[in-house]
Structure formats: structure tokens, C-alpha cells
């Protein structure tokens, strides 16, 4: 069963630096992925998505990289700002319509 009080991986970066958040997804059949940002007390907020037929997708200040060989996703945030401080989840989708969320990474931006 799941452990109580899951300890999130944490990442601390200086304001203005680039951040890289990693995610190992679970199912090799997953063909669609989303990165969500969750601020304290709020719901997950969509950041960027990528389909499995791509290995890179860029948005505004964010880039997602997909490596299907090792089932790995990363989220790169350029010029990280204090407002980027949050927990970041990757979510994968296969077969059905629901998403399965990863454990999450807590990002702290140091001003």
C-alpha cells in the first residue's frame, strides 16, 4: 500500500536560474503526458502537455522533454521566478481517459 506522509523530492533554485524537474512515469503504453503545477491549497494547474510521438515541446518559459526509452519526462523552466514555487506533477494517460499522477516535486525559488 501507499506510505503515509509521502516525502516529496525537493528542488531549490535561485531566482533567474533555470530549473529542471524530472519524472519517471510508470507505463510504457502511456501516450500522452501533462505537467501540472499545484500551489498550496489549490487545484492542479495545466502547464504543458506532450504526445508520445514527440520528444520535445516548448511553451512560454517551459520546455518538456520526453524519453520513451527510459520512461522519463522532464520539465525545464527558464529564468525561474518566485511565482514558480509550487509542487509540480507529471501525469500520464494510457488506454482510458483518466490521468495517473506521479509523486510530485516541490520547487522553491530563492529570491
Amino acid at each position, binding site marked *: 500500500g*501507499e506510505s*503515509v*506522509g*509521502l516525502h*516529496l523530492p525537493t528542488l531549490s533554485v535561485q531566482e533567474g536560474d533555470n530549473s529542471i524537474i524530472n519524472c519517471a512515469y510508470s507505463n510504457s503504453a502511456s*501516450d*500522452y503526458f*501533462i505537467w*501540472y503545477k*499545484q500551489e498550496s*491549497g*489549490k*487545484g*492542479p*494547474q*495545466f502547464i504543458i*502537455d506532450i*504526445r508520445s510521438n514527440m520528444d520535445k515541446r516548448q511553451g512560454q518559459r517551459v520546455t518538456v522533454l520526453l524519453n520513451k526509452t527510459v520512461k522519463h519526462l522532464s520539465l525545464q523552466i527558464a529564468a525561474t521566478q518566485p511565482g514558480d514555487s509550487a509542487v509540480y*506533477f507529471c*501525469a500520464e*494517460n494510457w488506454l*482510458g*481517459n*483518466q*490521468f*495517473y*499522477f*506521479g*509523486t*510530485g516535486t516541490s520547487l522553491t525559488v530563492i529570491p
Partner: protein
Amino acid sequence: EPEVTQTPSHQVTQMGQEVILRCVPISNHLYFYWYRQILGQKVEFLVSFYNNEISEKSEIFDDQFSVERPDGSNFTLKIRSTKLEDSAMYFCASRKEGRRTEAFFGQGTRLTVV
């Protein structure tokens, strides 16, 4: 910008009581979901709903849970007899289309069972 709205933001209930959590998905969306997040843990899938019926559910979604779309705008999650371990944030989400499109989440309802 359209958004998913949930009410109430916080619900406190006694163990054994029934609760109904309410959601108004984005108006032209067709797929609806409930997820929950126990404090400090990851977001877990409960149930998906499409075309007025449950399309998928997780093992968490047992006979104590039910969902309903009573009219064209609301989507509800009912827990018949709450347990202490039901205490969590409950998130509603909706999607315009099915697979491989983004899902939008509401702000959540914090359910506290005492």
C-alpha cells in the same frame, strides 16, 4: 477564462454522515472526473464520467461513492457514510474531448471527517 468551480471549499462532517461535493465543469466539456489528494500525498484518480455514465473507476471508488450529473451543469460526488480516512482534498476536473487532451481542475473541496 472558463474554469471548473467546486463547492464548498471546505466541508467538515461527522463520521458516518453523508456528504455531497459539487462541481460545475466547463460548459462545453464532455468528460468529467473526480480525484482526491490525501494531505502530503499524490493526486489519485477516483472516477471518470462520460455520456451520463461512469466510464472508469479506481479501486478507491467503492460502493460508498457515487457520482451524478443531475442537470446540464452540475457534477456531484456523494460519499454515503464517511470514514476518517475519507479526509482529503477532492478535485473535480473536466475535459473537452477524450484522450490526449488537457484536463482542467477545480480548486478543490477540503473534506474533513471527524
